[in-house]
């Protein structure tokens, strides 16, 4: 017997007690006598934690899992499987791991395989180098909290190469348990102050809800700046200015977060825009957090990934010596899609040395990032070179993954834009589409009557009728009165076409039903 979470009109989750809970109760309680309240209860638990939400794994996903179970138990439905297009998990949707990466990792896990001639020489050489850097030559030993030194050196070299020679200091690199861990760590470090001095953190609307979750948990003030849907989700400095000025009335804005390429929007910022943001951060004295985990996922013609660091340095010493920044990257996205390894890093720039010492102290509380994730990151920044045996296969696999994503990005935009009531901006990068849906007033009213946000109502109905799980736009933030959903472009092309067709048909039906 499991607990089923349902959403009541007060948007408070209630849990239906299972039979087991009842039998666990003491005789006193079962007899209806009052039992002492819980030591840890809703009233005395951390009020910040009560405000935390994470839509990507929220109520709709719970229901999707429930339906999964029902299907397994043989319950008849209009579909045979639940397609989980809610989470940016490439392998879950059938993308294959890159052979070279997995070969090296297997060798690191079980070094006896170094004697096996099925593994190419370059994979063995990398495995040996990684193991040499591990305590006791084992990936099971703790590493230093900041991450294995030679891997940080490799990451620094990779950044230098990516950024056309701009130098990177390994000591400014912090390996982490995924980019999320590094992002949360930075926010933990920066958020302070009371009342009107409470730290304000600027974040895009729409945003990846890790940010809103972390800000709620830390009781930071979330300062929303709206991306312009009509201009392909571009960022407008006037909007940034508006947001920060209004925020200064009630908090102390100190941080600006930007996701590029964007999640959920997929927008790839122009170089000019990045310069403008850097200028803005300097003028407003803000710490800049640049989430660049999708940096290899760029598809649209005319779009190019520009790292914030590179642009910063190319703007000259007036900016490059003063603007304080952290950039984040991960092994979960791009062509690797290795979410389950929890590998990532951040590079901090122009950080006050005393603050940096505090950061170094803070990361030690988590002991160290997973060593397999660190090893994986090492391979990502140190891939096979043209003169190495694994090069051809590696490049073939990498190119195939990115090409497939680009094709699916185009396909998605194309198909959605044929549906009246769905408007889809080009998916310039990342792995998602965030189309706008027009909902009939009757549907909006029905949703409200049932205590549901309209796009959640829409997505739940889609889930129940078609077995497709998306995340409603309300989970990411959107302009008042607009509705969206986020769908990943990760299913294999044929399945994606199927999903796009089903959603299109559903939308038309939905619109008719509530007309």
């Amino acid at each position: 017997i499991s607990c089923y979470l349902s959403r009541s009109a007060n948007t408070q989750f209630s849990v239906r007690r299972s039979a087991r809970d009842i039998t666990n109760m003491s005789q006193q309680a079962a007899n209806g006598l009052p039992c002492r309240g819980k030591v840890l209860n809703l009233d005395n638990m951390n009020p910040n934690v009560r405000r935390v939400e994470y839509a990507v794994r929220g109520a709709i996903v719970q229901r999707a899992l429930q339906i999964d179970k029902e299907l397994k138990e043989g319950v008849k439905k209009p579909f045979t499987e639940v397609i989980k297009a809610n989470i940016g998990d490439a392998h879950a949707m059938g993308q294959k791991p890159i052979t070279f990466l997995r070969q090296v990792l297997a060798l690191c896990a079980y070094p006896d395989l170094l004697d096996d001639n099925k593994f190419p020489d370059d994979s063995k050489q990398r495995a040996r180098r990684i193991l040499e850097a591990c305590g006791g030559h084992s990936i099971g030993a703790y590493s230093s909290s900041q991450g294995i030194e030679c891997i940080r050196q490799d990451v620094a070299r990779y950044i230098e190469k990516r950024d056309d020679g701009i130098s990177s200091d390994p000591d400014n690199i912090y390996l982490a348990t995924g980019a999320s861990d590094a992002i949360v760590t930075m926010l933990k470090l920066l958020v302070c102050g009371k009342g009107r001095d409470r730290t304000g953190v600027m974040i895009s609307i729409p945003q990846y809800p890790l940010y809103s979750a972390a800000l709620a948990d830390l009781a930071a003030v979330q300062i929303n700046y709206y991306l312009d849907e009509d201009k392909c989700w571009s960022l407008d400095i006037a909007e940034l200015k508006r947001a920060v000025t209004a925020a200064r009335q009630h908090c102390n804005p100190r941080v600006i977060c930007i996701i590029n390429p964007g999640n959920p929007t997929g927008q790839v910022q122009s170089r000019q825009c990045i310069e403008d943001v850097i200028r803005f951060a300097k003028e407003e004295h803000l710490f800049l957090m640049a989430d660049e985990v999708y940096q290899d996922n760029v598809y649209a013609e005319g779009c190019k990934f520009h790292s914030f660091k590179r642009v910063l340095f190319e703007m000259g010493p007036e900016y490059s010596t003063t603007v304080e920044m952290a950039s984040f990257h991960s092994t979960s996205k791009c062509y690797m899609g290795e979410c389950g390894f929890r590998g990532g890093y951040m590079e901090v720039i122009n950080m006050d040395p005393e603050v940096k010492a505090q950061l170094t102290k803070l990361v030690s509380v988590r002991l160290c990032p997973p060593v397999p994730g660190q090893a994986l990151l090492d391979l990502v920044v140190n891939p096979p070179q043209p003169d190495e045996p694994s090069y051809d296969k590696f490049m073939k696999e990498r190119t195939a993954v990115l090409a497939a994503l680009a094709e699916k990005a185009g396909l998605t935009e194309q198909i959605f834009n044929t549906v009246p009531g769905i408007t889809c901006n080009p998916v310039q990068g990342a792995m998602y589409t965030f189309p706008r849906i027009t909902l009939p007033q009757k549907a909006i009213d029905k949703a409200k009557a049932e205590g549901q946000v309209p796009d959640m109502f829409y997505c739940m109905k889609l889930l129940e009728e078609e077995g497709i799980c998306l995340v409603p736009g309300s989970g990411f933030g959107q302009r008042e009165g607009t509705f969206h959903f986020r769908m990943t472009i990760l299913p294999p092309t044929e399945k994606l076409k199927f999903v796009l067709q089903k959603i299109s048909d559903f939308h038309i039906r939905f619109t008719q039903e509530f007309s």
Partner: protein
Amino acid sequence: MSALQEMSPNVRNIKQLQYVALIRRASQIKEELRQKVRKPYKEMIDVCWGDPHRAGVKPLTFVRQVLAACLYPQLVDSDTLPVDVRQRARMLLRGCAGGSVGSYTAPAGTSEIVHGISEFITRRDGGAPSYPENIYISPGSQWALQNIINVLVNSEPSSPKTGVLTPLPCYSTTISSMVGLGAVAVPYSLCEERGWELQVEELQRALESAKGVCKPVALYIVNPGNPTGYVQSRKSMQEVIRFASEKRLFLLADEVYQDCVYGDNSEFVSYKRVLAEMGPPLSDTVELASFHSASKGFMGECGLRGGYVELVNMDPAVMKYIYTLFSADSCAPVLGQFALDLLTSPPQPGDPSYPLYRQETRHIRSTLVRNVKRVFEVVNSLPGFSCQPVEGGVFAFPRMHLPPAAIHKATEMGMQPDLFYCARLLEEAGVFVIPGCEYGQKEGTYHIRFCIMVQEDIMEELLRRLTSFHTQFMKDFS
């Protein structure tokens, strides 16, 4: 922006490690040795972490074979690896979306692995039921502990700070976690003279000391102890449970060393089991979080970051928020989750890998038992050194009775006396241990902590160097 003023006070309040200078020096010495600089020793003995692999203990073959096969599934179909390894890998991969360890799992961990853990707990605890939905896998047990403490902390600026009763001495990372989350550690002293025993009267005293300072909401116990090596008796655990119930404290039971118990009269029994055996009303009402990990024990897979928490008697409404907290972390690293599965469901008699598995674990265990004996013998034979029996855990925490001259010299140099001792030990003997000041100790007492889960020959070398250094040190400062 400069900022020490403008950053989180909670982070600022986390104590800097006392032995930071030692870490730096140890790193330099390692480099100097690599450059073949002449020293009285050829290699440094680094026993400051509870990290068996770093100290030369070999990973378990079965574990690593399964992980390799999961990472590179071509191995599942080849003959390179034993049949049961391949079967296990197949089973684990079936629980992964897309059959890949690169996929996210459910926030609390893969359903099959979580079920396996709950079955393990039930078996371990003589049948006391364990429910999968109360179990969360995390990147190491400290991560889960931090999430639970986060829920317990009252973050309202106007409210008194949240207190957590913590042992003295205590593993420093836990204290740092609490402070970083805005809680206050309220120390209760373990009784060194009685083998680091936990005494309820001392819990009471600690609780009273918190009046006017903070509001204690939880009691943190480490059993088997770190750094102390103490293993609690059932009777003591019952007293603690009664105390927690009476004083309305949430019980946090850190049991990561449960597989490392050697004392002749010691036996690990879990808090969950003792609680269940005490029956209602206590068994239905005392709120408990128990922590375990793949980092310790025979596996020693610290770098994989696999740990879990089991929550007992939690308010279901609060559980929902715990779920959300864990979901925002995405999930624990999949290899860490697999390590937990291998920990909780090891090879069984009849499995092809069982003989080797048994041989390797027995070897590690006998090494530990032998090391414990040797440490006790040698350290207690040295003048100015005494050691309580190490009943469990992976550390020795002997006490040094330092001569006044040494204490004076240390004070002159602005160092804690035991830190001074450790700095000398590192420099002159190439042995890296952690001073007791890092963990907290009674005023005027000094200790060192070192890992005893090391290869036998390394332990012998360590004891040889320690004896020689200590004898000289005591002479120099007599």
